[in-house]
């Protein structure tokens, strides 16, 4: 790794990412044909004296070639090596892209860097929410226990949402997810992510929760709409049609003061289940 990033640097780096992403015009790297051109692209990618725009274009060309260019096999090993190098690059946009690509191919080198950064923020090369996402491509118990711990301690909403997604495969996280879902002090976005996590972990539990939310007149409209969506698309017909209170509430929502989307969803469910 050429350079380690502190927690503060990682946080500030969002601004530089924003600036980098704004440059979407694609420069002409004047590459040769075939494997020679791909080698040239790797050279540009590795060269920190090149502009970010040219290096990003080299990365784009190489990753695109990985989808089927016959000559790509000749440079595959060099490409992976270059991506690993980029995990310590000065440019966070390149660190993010490289770590994402490596993580999607379950690269253990990248996974170690990400785990190290989550355990020790001074070693972090990308923000924690990114690291959690990249680690989600190869879940194992170490990542999941770390996600639970981060969720409990972090105040950053993006980090907590990513942690919840990792917890969606972890039976030990079930109680925490349910508690978060029920907690009206949590942000709507975190509660919605909890609903998605619960849906993945225990679909029946989500259906029970969704019915309760619909019956709760003090609930947030966005959370109600999310619950109605779960009932509409994944609901158990017998449970819905057999729930008298729910049927009554859906009828009220269809015609009452609810928002347009809640009304529409309530009507859709009523029609679908012939309520």
């Amino acid at each position, binding site marked *: 790794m050429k350079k380690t990033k502190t927690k503060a640097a990682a946080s500030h780096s969002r601004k530089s990412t924003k600036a980098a992403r704004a440059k979407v015009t694609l420069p002409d790297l004047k590459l040769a044909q075939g494997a020679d051109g791909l080698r040239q692209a790797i050279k540009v990618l590795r060269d920190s004296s090149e502009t970010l725009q040219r290096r990003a274009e080299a990365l784009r060309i190489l990753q695109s070639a990985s989808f089927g260019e*016959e000559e790509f096999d000749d440079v595959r090993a060099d490409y992976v090596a270059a991506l690993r190098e980029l995990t310590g690059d000065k440019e966070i946009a390149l660190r993010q892209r490289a770590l994402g690509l490596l993580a999607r191919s379950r690269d253990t080198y990248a996974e170690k860097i990400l785990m190290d950064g989550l355990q020790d923020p001074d070693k972090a090369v990308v923000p924690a929410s990114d690291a959690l996402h990249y680690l989600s491509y190869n879940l194992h118990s170490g990542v999941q226990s770390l996600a639970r711990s981060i969720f409990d301690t972090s105040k950053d909403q993006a980090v907590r949402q990513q942690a919840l997604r990792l917890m969606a495969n972890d039976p030990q996280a079930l109680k925490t997810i349910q508690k978060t879902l029920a907690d009206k002090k949590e942000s709507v976005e975190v509660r919605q992510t909890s609903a998605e996590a619960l849906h*993945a972990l225990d679909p029946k539990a989500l259906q029970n929760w969704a019915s309760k939310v619909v019956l709760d007149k003090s609930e947030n409209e966005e*959370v109600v709409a999310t619950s109605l969506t779960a009932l509409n698309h994944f609901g158990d017909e017998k449970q819905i049609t057999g729930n008298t209170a729910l049927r009554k509430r859906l009828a009220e929502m269809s015609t009452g003061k609810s928002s347009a989307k809640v009304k529409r969803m309530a009507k859709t469910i009523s029609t679908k289940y012939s309520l």
Partner: protein
Amino acid sequence: MIVEIQINNSLQPAANYVTWAWSPCLIRVTNPAGIPGAQVQVQLSQNALAGGGAIRFAKTASGSGSSTLNVTVPKNGASVPFFIRGITASKADPGVQITARQSGSTASVGSVALMVRIRKNVTSLSTAERDRLIAAFAQLNNQGMGRYADFAGTHVTAAQQEAHGRSGFLPWHRAFILDLERELQTIDRSVSLPYWRFDQPAAALFTPDFLGKGVFQGPGASNVVFSATNPLRFWKAGPTPGIFRDPNFNVSSAPPGPMSQAAALALGNPGALFKNFRRMESISPRDYHGDAHVSFAGPIDSIPTAAQDPLFFLLHCNVDRLWARWQKQNARLDVTNAASFETVVPPNRIGHNLGDTMWPWNGDTNPPRPNFALGGTMAPSPSVSAPGPQPRVMDCFDYQGSINPANNMGFSYDDVPL
């Protein structure tokens, strides 16, 4: 007198879907009461229903057809063949009703409703079409436990050699998206897979109510944002729930990477040869297919994870549409024409030669095939029999049955005529 009309030679309502291709139909008398002679003259006509659309009739599967058809039907119940094809796509099911009337009478003696089901540009879908599509996708996914998992689990590193880098790339992906489309249609028969024209702006696709809104200029691991009423918010096709797709471009415009359609179609030149055209898969520094994948950071940018994102299928529908356009433009539908495919000596890797069956539908898990094959055989269609349960490469060319009606795979594109 009563007549029975069969679409696609079937009485199943599930078969009442047509494309631009000629569909074989049958008409027969089921109640001859009131017919004076041995046969009766019947006129077949059409009227648009709520879903809209229009068809043409013909006595043989050729020509441009007509808006009505007169048929002589025997009284004894024997079936008489005729053909129909769509000329205007429906937006919902049913879209068109065929009515039979005895010549000289206005009274209906039989009718059948159908849909002209066509693959469309995703930006042209109505709100109802969009919502049916995402509902079918969500159901197929079913929190990661549905049939979609087989598709996400098939397009992975182990399958790279089956589906990429060689002549079989286009046929394999044609079969792959058709298999998914048929699975979607078992959930909602009115759904067809739309295509994402990634060389044009498609802002309507990347919204919270459709495939989700990514954060351009955002952090490196953005999950797309869905509206509360979008069932795709419960998507799970990888180890964790959610769809991650960070656009490398402003989604109100087209991504800057992929070459234009005209440039991609010209790749086949000189000679309009498949071996040249198939470079649209991946060729530096600009191509059509690979550059569309890497317009985003996220699962879709890598072979092992690309099919975890439902956008994959809209992207590949467009790749397939381009091949269909190229085939039509250059008369390359006939697989016996050497220019329609790239045959190499010695033979290509297994799976990339015309007579080879394709994995995973063939269930072959012997080397050099991957050691797994998810999902079983190709999903059947109630309307057509091609490409069969274990498609060969050669079964995926004449997709509308233009050369041989038996080759009809049961789909058409809105901008590629028969």
